[in-house]
């Protein structure tokens, strides 16, 4: 653990900021329908937390906190959640069309408030799950592939 990753300075700073970065990512996702950003941008920021952990502490630490199996499941869950939200629109009483914003129709809410845009925030959450986990998977798989072909790691 001690000899992996970067210097103690980087590790300490990473330890301080990782929570804030994650909070910022969640903010971008949840306020996606009101401010610039949304599911994709927020998801990228969430994935970056784990990328930062990989860079600072080494891949074992990042994989201990976000296992590949979990990431893969979340990836599928995000996509399925998005699809289920869309398909529910077809169900007769809720609106009748694929992707109908049935929540906004039943309960529009006040514009520019957090609970206002119907299914759009829910879709943003689904997209964020999908983007965060698949971007992390892409990154970590590229890291692992490099290791397999690195002759120094064989010992």
């Amino acid at each position, binding site marked *: 653990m001690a000899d992996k990753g970067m210097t103690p300075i980087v590790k300490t700073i990473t330890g301080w900021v990782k929570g804030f970065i994650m909070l910022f990512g969640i903010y971008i996702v949840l306020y996606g329908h009101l401010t610039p950003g949304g599911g994709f941008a927020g998801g990228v920021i969430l994935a970056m937390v784990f990328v930062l952990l990989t860079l600072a502490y080494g891949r074992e630490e990042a994989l201990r906190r976000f296992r590949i199996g979990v990431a*893969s*499941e979340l990836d599928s*869950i995000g996509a*399925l959640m998005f699809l289920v939200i*869309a398909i529910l*629109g077809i169900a007769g009483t809720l609106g009748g*069309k*694929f*992707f*109908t914003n049935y929540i906004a129709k039943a309960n529009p809410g006040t514009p520019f408030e957090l609970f206002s845009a119907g299914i759009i925030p829910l879709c943003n959450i689904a997209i964020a799950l999908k983007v965060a986990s698949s971007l992390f998977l892409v990154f970590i798989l590229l890291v692992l592939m490099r290791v397999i072909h690195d002759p120094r790691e064989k010992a």
Partner: protein
Amino acid sequence: MQIIPLFVAIPLGVAFFIPMVARKRPRVADTLANLTTLALFLMAISVIGKNGVYWMGGWGPFKHVPLGINLVLDGVSVFMLITIALISFLVTIYSIQYMDKFTAKARFYALFLLMLAGMNGVALTGDLFNLYVFLEIASIASYALVAFGCEHEELEASFKYLVLGSVGSTLILFGVAITYAMTGNLNMAQVSSIIGGELKPIHLFVVALFISGFGLKAALIPFHAWLPDAHPSAPAPISAMLSGVLIKTIGVYAMARVMFNVIGITPLTSYVLMVLGTVSMVVGVLLAMGQDDIKRFLAYSSISQVGYVVLAVGIGTRFAIAAGLFHLINHAVFKSLLFLNSGAIEYATGTRDLNKMGRLREKMPVTSTTSFIGSMAIAGIPPFSGFWSKLFIIIAAVQAERYGFAAWAAGVSVLTLAAFMRLQRRAFFGERHEAYDSAKEVPGTMQASMVGLAILCIVMGFLWLPQARETFLIPAAKVLQEGLNYASNILGM
């Protein structure tokens, strides 16, 4: 018409569901995938003869101006949906036992269904940018599927396919972007009513971009370099899907849709399509002649047969387009059959090299018989399906007074016969070679799928009977041939 978005939503949903529940249980994955393709096939059958426009989220057109994204179900879409669903259903049956030798079956089905969702989307969409998105979904899934074996040769083929496929996608995206800059709209119907068949120089540039982009996806010569590597490297069911359906959906169909319904066909475009089709037809079969790898041979032959379809679509009369679409579905059936046969041979003997086969007819009667039927159909021997579609393409060319093209089409048919007789002799008849001893007939579901396709090769000729033709082929040809009426049909002007 609530069923329309489900053509995309169901395969997409199951594609993400399978890796969650069936990663360690291959039989569950088999069941789910087969039920999905069966359901899609039944859904496709149920929409024959129906038309409809589906506005996503209920955002319909306002005073004939589209606000939202739409899916369009018309003659050609139904035709493509049926083709895709039919082949994918039989291919998933084949995959049950064929894919047992690979690990990670759940991932295979996930990618397969993702590709299916992309193709159904391409067939249904009424929006140019969505066309690009669905096309990329189908393409990216197919890049991964080509590399599925993860051997050196497969990865190399997949990389080549990835690079050339991305070049094609980029050209299409450029075309879409310029169209958007010109018209301020991406809805196909709206763009078509704005352009209105009057082509300025910038439109010709867009036409050139679309022909090169979709030509790359359809592997027309001179854009074909990736196909003979990519199609043989994939597992056999995927080769069957790629050659049988994918190059037609995201290549030929998408090109025809954009050329006829969105930009409007002109004599120049039409002539370019005919020339590209004829060159692919002739060069494809000549390149196929010299191949010793059975799947590579079939891949080159696909280029040649797609050339027939593009030639017929390029002629542009209603009869010619109907004949071209008829050949499209016929080719989907017999080329899938032949690729599944080659997969069966590889499964039983471990080789794809024609020099190592010979007399396999004695050891593999079902594979041999079905392959013989497939070969006769593709070579255009009556009464098999390929004969009728090629005959009607030639008649259509003669009717349109394109005698030269008709002669080429007839000549290539003879060359195809020669090429496939060579395949039959070297694989199933002729002398014994080392693969003979280890060969044995393949398991049940693989046989069932091949027999099903072989029966289709015989009965598909009946699609041209007046009753079937009027409900299935002619409505499809009518949509393309009526060209820019597409806009008024959709926006209700």
